[in-house]
Structure formats: C-alpha cells, structure tokens
C-alpha cells in the first residue's frame, strides 16, 4: 500500500542539535502507529515535523496527505482555559476546513457537532465554559474537535497523559474507530501495555530508530534497554554531523 508518510534521512532538532537523527522509513496508509521511547527521544519533535510546525534540519518528509487533511493534537495544547467560550463553540472549530472565515454553520453541521460531543461522552456539557472542565473533560472536548476535522492523518502527542482509566478506554476506542474508517493515526505514547493492546505497529525511537515494526517484536526488553542507553542528553559542544557517518 502507498505510504501516507515517508521519512527520508530526516533530521529534526533545535538550534542545530538533532532531536531526531537521520530517520528513515515509511508509514503505510491506514496505519495505527505508536511512537514510543524514553523522554528526550524526539517523539514530540517527530510529530511537530510531520505536522509542519518544525522545519527539518536536513532530509525531508514526503507525504501523500495535504496539510489541511492532517489533524495534530500537541502534547500541551495551547488552549487558553480562561477564555469565555463553551464546549460547543470549541468543538465547532473543528469545522474550520469547511466553514473558513464566512461559511455558516447549518443544520447538518450542528448535527455533526452534537454527534461529536456525544461520541466523546460529553452530552449535556455543550454550554459549559471550558474554564469549568476537568482535565479529562477538556481532552474529550479536544477529541471531539479532532473528530470534526475529518482528517486522513491524525497526530496525537501523549493524548492520554494524566487521564483516568475510563477516559483512556473511551478515547482509545475512538482512535480505533478512526483507524477502522481508514484514517492513519500516529500517536506518541508512554503506556506500553496500552500500546501492546491497541497499536499493531510501533516505532521505538531514541533520536534514531531503535526498532520499527510489529509492536510485539519492537517492544522487547532488550530493545527498550538499548533505547534508554542511546538517549543521552544533548552535548553543547557536539561536532557537526558529517554526512558520511549517518547512523
């Protein structure tokens, strides 16, 4: 199947220091891919690169999915929780691609917004200001917005952090539903049990690839130990990376 994403000698980083180093590989269409690895392994950086928020230091990302069909939920979504807006309006933002500046929100759209809110289990919360939501309710709201974005490629950066088991189960079911509808989902996750149970493919990252393939083959004790060792802190005086020594 045609890859929805292809990394070609991709290096992403900050101030010339690589956080993702010479990454090579392809994500097939309809994948459900988990990205795992220790802190500082470059997982969030990789997602920023795919989302187009961060330009590569070298190499490139080839994608079959145009930017407007990509949905990205960053780790710390920059939502201003004190802003006077309710759940319904925040979710409705997911329709931006259809409505743009002027497009009205008609009856069909309102039905879709209500369906999205129901799908994440927030019926009755439509008029609640976002300032009054708990962490889990906020994340459900953001998932409802993702739902409306109707994206072919969905990028989730640690979407289940600090959530209770019930919320994680609900949102995981939603992720599986998206994948069942033929969407590609790439999720950064730390809960390896969850990954083993729900994500068929895993990329184990420690700045460069430790292992990439079927989850059960990737998440082995020895691979995880290698990942931890490979993930050293950045070296202020690191020499420039010579093209010939690509790891």
């Amino acid at each position, binding site marked *: 199947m045609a890859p929805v994403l292809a990394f070609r000698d991709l290096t992403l980083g900050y101030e010339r220091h690589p956080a993702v180093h010479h990454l090579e590989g392809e994500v097939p269409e309809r994948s459900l891919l988990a990205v795992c690895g220790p802190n500082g392994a470059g997982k969030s950086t990789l997602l920023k690169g795919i*989302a187009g*928020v961060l330009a590569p230091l070298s190499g490139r990302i080839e994608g079959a999915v145009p930017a*407007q069909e*990509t*949905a*990205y939920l*960053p780790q710390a*979504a*920059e*939502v*201003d929780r004190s*802003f*006077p*807006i*309710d759940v319904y309006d*925040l979710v409705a*933002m997911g329709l*931006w*691609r259809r*409505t*743009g*500046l*002027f497009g009205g929100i008609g009856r069909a759209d309102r039905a879709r917004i209500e369906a999205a809110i129901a799908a994440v289990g927030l019926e009755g919360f439509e008029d609640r*200001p*976002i*300032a009054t939501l708990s962490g889990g309710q906020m994340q459900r709201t953001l998932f409802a*917005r993702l739902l409306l*974005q109707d994206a072919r490629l969905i990028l989730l950066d640690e979407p289940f952090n600090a959530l209770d088991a019930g919320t994680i189960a609900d949102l995981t079911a939603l992720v599986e539903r998206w994948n069942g509808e033929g969407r590609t989902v790439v999720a950064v996750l730390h809960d390896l049990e969850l990954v083993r149970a729900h994500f068929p493919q895993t990329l184990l990252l420690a700045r460069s690839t430790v292992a990439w393939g079927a989850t059960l083959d990737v998440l082995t004790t020895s691979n995880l130990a290698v990942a931890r060792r490979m993930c050293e802190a950045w070296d202020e005086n690191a020499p420039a990376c010579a093209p010939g020594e690509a790891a």
Partner: protein
Amino acid sequence: MMLYDYIVGPFAEFDFMRRALVGVLALGVGAGPIGVLMMLRRMSLAGDAMAHAILPGAAVGFLAAGLNLWAMTIGGMVAGFTVAIGAGAVARATQMKEDAALAAFYLVSLALGVLLVSLRGSNVDLLHVLFGTVLALDDPTLLLIVSIASITLLVLAVLWRPLVMESVDPGFLRSVSRAGAPSHLAFLALVVLNLVGGFHALGTLLAVGMMMLPAIAARFWSRELTTLVWLSVLIACGSGALGLLVSYHSGVPSGPAIILVAGGAYVLSVLFGPVGGLLPRLVPRRHLEA
C-alpha cells in the same frame, strides 16, 4: 422636570454637547469590542504602549502643520502602525514575545517623539493632543471618528472567527489555517485606528481608557463572549454620556471626567460583579448539591 433638565437639557440646548455625545458614542461602539479582545488576548497594557507610540506621531503632525486634523491623524497612524506592525512582525518572526517587542518599539518611538518636540520648542496647543478636545469636535473630526467605528465593526465581523480561535487556541489555528498572522496584524491596525480616533476626543493617553476600562469592568459580569462585547459597548457609551454630563454640570475637563466615570464602573464591577467580584466572594452562598 429636574431630571430632564439635568440629563437631557445640556444636549438639547447646546450643539457642542450633541456633537460630543455623538463622538463618545461612536468611540464606545468601536472601542468596546476591541477592548474585550485586547483583554482576552492579554494585551491590556499593549494598548497603553501603542497610545504612547501614537503620541509622538501626532505631535510631529502638529509641529509640521499646526492643529490640522489630517496631519495629526496621519502622523499618529503612521507612528502607531509602525510600532504595532513592526512589533507584531518581530514577535512572529523571532523568539521574542510580543510584549517585549512592543516595549522596545514604543520606547524608541516615544523617545523619538519627545526629541522632535523639544527641537521645535513646546506649545500650549500641544495640550490638545495630550488631553483631547471632546467639546470642540468639528464636522471632519466627527466624521473621522464615526468612520473609524464603522470600519472597526466591519473588519471585526470579517475576522471574528480567526481572532477568537487565535485567542483560545493559537496552536490549533496555526495547524488548520494561515489566517492567524494576517488577522492579528489587522486587529493591531484596528487598535491603532481606534486610539487615533480616540485621541481627538480624549487625548492620546486617555483614549486607551475608553477601550480597556469598559472591557475589564464587563469581565466581572459575564462569562460569555457576546455578552462581554455588548456590556463593554454599553459601559463605554454610558461612561461617555455620563462623563459629559458630569463635566458640564461641575465644570471639570470632560476627557478625564469620561474616563473617571468608566473607572467608577470598574470599581463597582470589582466590588459587586457576580463573576469573581469581591462582594460575592466575601458573602459565600451555600454550595450546591452537584
């Protein structure tokens, strides 16, 4: 009939009071929603910085052409746009946060203005620039203020969605659209326009008061954006009208009187406002069952 004489009388009797009333009402209609967005975007002090930036531009216009509406307006706009758009562009193109960029730009602009004014010697008429002449609004000035209010409402109607989205979740807007940066710059331009409109009536420094005080006061009364905008416009227009009356009856300068009335509305809101006001906090009611 006492009340009629007190409230309607001055406006019925004097042409200059009617003009002043139209001026402050138009200012309130434009500045109300702008102020709400400024406050919600945590730019409450940015307006003050921009007012300082406009002052030298208006002063230069005054020095070049005397007390000429267009010279001062264009001078103020050029200085204001340069500072607002320059600071906005620097903030977006570099690591610098917008407040820091704005501080750098307006301080340079202010210093430049003071330097230019001192080269030409001071002038009493310059006080008009500082404190406005709401009781002497002529036709062109009034037309300018009303036009600015109209432009403001039209542009806000077009850019409302991206402006709100960028305030709530800038990362999301960036990920779905490129409308964020242009609408932010357009918004800064609106801020400058309204401050320039305001300085003819209230002076450069007090013009910010008409923008920010009603918006901040309104925040104590509602958690809902549309209501906030309506309340802000209402408080701004009410302060304008009431301030004119206070000024008329007690003989104090009208610009400061208007802003002080708005300040009074703010104090009342802090004390009694149901959304986080002091009194509702001091007199806690029993908590609910669920």
